[in-house]
């Protein structure tokens, strides 16, 4: 398989881990209460669902901005620079190579912890999907001030549709994301990394230049 030796690497700082799991908790809460508000099921009671959803939303928006700030100020943004290099290889790996025991075409390294596919997906989620959720959610909250804000042309139906559509994409992302965490060298390897910060990976001999830019 591979002649490289395995080493333990500290990938995720305590802040990053904490932020990750808190976001997970808040987003899970938002999905759970959000679809009750949408009328998909009854769980907490409508009034409670609305209240929990609104509080969790505000808390999560604050968290999201803090996380963005952290990414921008600590140099972590380098992990999210999109690239087309090796994307095809990564896609091929997940759709075929993984089944026959091939090695991952892009190693997980301290200075490049996301593969090209992750970079693109995380970037799209963080810069398109989540901002759509935040802005449609805030507009939903500010419904009665639309006129005063010069937004009288908006329709609640459209805002609600975008918000639900965003939620669907986030759920779909979450399902695939959770599954992908089981594709490390052991099923729990990636998950433990997000819990302890440490993961056993193949030693990176050299990191390619495009990965660290």
């Amino acid at each position: 398989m591979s002649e490289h030796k395995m080493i333990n690497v500290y990938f995720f700082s305590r802040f990053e881990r904490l932020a990750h799991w808190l976001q997970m908790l808040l987003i899970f809460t938002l999905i759970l209460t959000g679809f009750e508000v949408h009328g998909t099921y009854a769980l907490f009671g409508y009034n409670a669902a609305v209240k929990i959803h609104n509080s969790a939303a505000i808390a999560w928006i604050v968290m999201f901005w803090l996380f963005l700030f952290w990414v921008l100020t600590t140099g972590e943004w380098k992990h999210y620079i999109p690239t087309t290099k090796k994307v095809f290889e990564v896609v091929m790996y997940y759709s075929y190579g993984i089944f026959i025991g091939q090695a991952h075409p892009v190693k997980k390294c301290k200075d490049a912890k996301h593969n090209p596919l992750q970079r693109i997906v995380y970037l799209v989620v963080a810069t398109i999907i989540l901002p759509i959720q935040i802005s449609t959610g805030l507009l939903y909250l500010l419904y009665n001030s639309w006129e005063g804000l010069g937004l009288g042309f908006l329709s609640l139906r459209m805002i609600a549709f975008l918000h639900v559509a965003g939620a669907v994409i986030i759920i779909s992302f979450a399902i695939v994301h959770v599954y992908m965490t089981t594709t490390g060298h052991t099923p729990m390897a990636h998950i433990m990394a997000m819990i302890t910060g440490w993961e056993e990976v193949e030693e990176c001999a050299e990191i390619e230049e495009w990965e660290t830019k």
Partner: protein
Amino acid sequence: MKKMRVNFKFCLWLVLAAVFVLGLSNESSANEAPVAPGIALAKQAKPEEKGSTVDHSKLKQLDKNFKSGDEITKACLECHTEADHQFKKTYHWTWKDPKSEGGKGADSVNNFCISANNMEDPLCIKCHPGWNGKKGEVNCLSCHGQEKFDFAEAFKDIQDVSAVGDKESIEIVKGIQDDVKKAAQDVGAVRRRNCGDCHFKGGGGDGVKHGDLDTSLLKPSRELDVHMGIDGENFDCTRCHTTTSHNIAGRFYGTPAEGRHKSLMDDDQISRISCESCHSATPHKPGVKANDHTDKVACQSCHIPTFARELPTKMYWDWSASGKLKDGKYYSEDGPYGKHTYDTKKGDFVWGKDVVPEYYWYNGTMTDTTVNDIIDPSKPVKLRWPIGTPNAKDSRIFPFKVHVGKQPYDLKGKNFLAPLVSGPKDYWKTLDWEDAFTRGMATLGKTWSGEYGFVDTKYAFPTTHMVVPGENALSCTECHTPANGRLANIEGVYIPGRDRLGYLGYLGWFIILASLAGVLIHAAIRIASSKRRD
């Protein structure tokens, strides 16, 4: 780098703690606030003035032996010189809406006793505030008499007994005259009973017409009516139905109760007829979502969950079934709530209690149907129906009692017929529709073709009384629910929890299920192939 990490973690905890504390303090301050702003505001309204600067029993004008109602009114007018001029211009006297030209004094029809026949129907006219219909003087005492007193009977007794002329009868007449005098002197501000004598009993009996107005409002509990409850605010009708020159604020036909949704608490001259007049447009505590509803949903929609909560109201009246005899005699059948479900004179009835209203967009005005209107008998005719435009600034989603009827119309002319029913030669005595139509239409200056049929009709009443205490208002899911919610038929607004996304919703489910299936299949192949490699 290590230092940086610690700072961020600290920030994270700080932010979360701040959000948590803010959320808590917001919640607790909302709980500490003794009352919602809308209630605090309403409490600022100038208290109702009770009491009077005049003791009418001391006035020489009223110290007389009155022989007729007109004499009493003339005595009133000696001091209240403009009262009759004012009053005769109002709807209470004319029974005609100045805007729509409709009204029960005109050609309008309903699906109860159908028409007042230009005030020639003797039962209808009992509620007209004159001594003798539209002729003669205003009966000031129908609204200002503090205790109920049957003047008509007293005057008739005086006449009859005086005719006898012996000593005993003179004594009796004197007694009756003293009673009349006492009743004429016992006047003052309008009480609930005065309004209720007609408005609680419209349609010929207690609670027949409105559903939100009946004699249970004479002494209601706070739960029945938070404003009028004798253990609540104990308002008289006039607390909201304010008066200017005998014009009493309220809605009639084409005229909304209040044109603008306004709040001018410092101006004591405004009519307080709309909820917002006292409670403002954002009456709930800050942050309460209900404040965001007031642009589309009337207060009444949530705060009057059902009407006729204590006494039943009539929901259906089928005139076509009337006229049946049992053993050659008139008869009636009793049904639920101790009310008739059949009466030879009137036909079939259905009564309802604790009834859930129907909801429609409403701008404060109603359509009006008269005997002159051409109707389409192939479907139920909306005799009186709320006018409103979804999402228009002047319209709100509002609750209504809808009384369904089946009533006569001219088969050829396709217009409603207005029979005379209650007089000595009228339908209830003769059971002769054709004669009742001929003479009834004549009161309105109309003729008819001679052929009649019966058509289904609907008559809507805005529901605005019997407001419950806040804690009993509707819960969210009465409307925010996918199926059979109260606002299931309301168009023009997106209601979260009610409205589905149609095919797009299925697409959403497809995306989610496809993701799930995708990862499951992927996992299965992974497991299978790794086993094979082992």
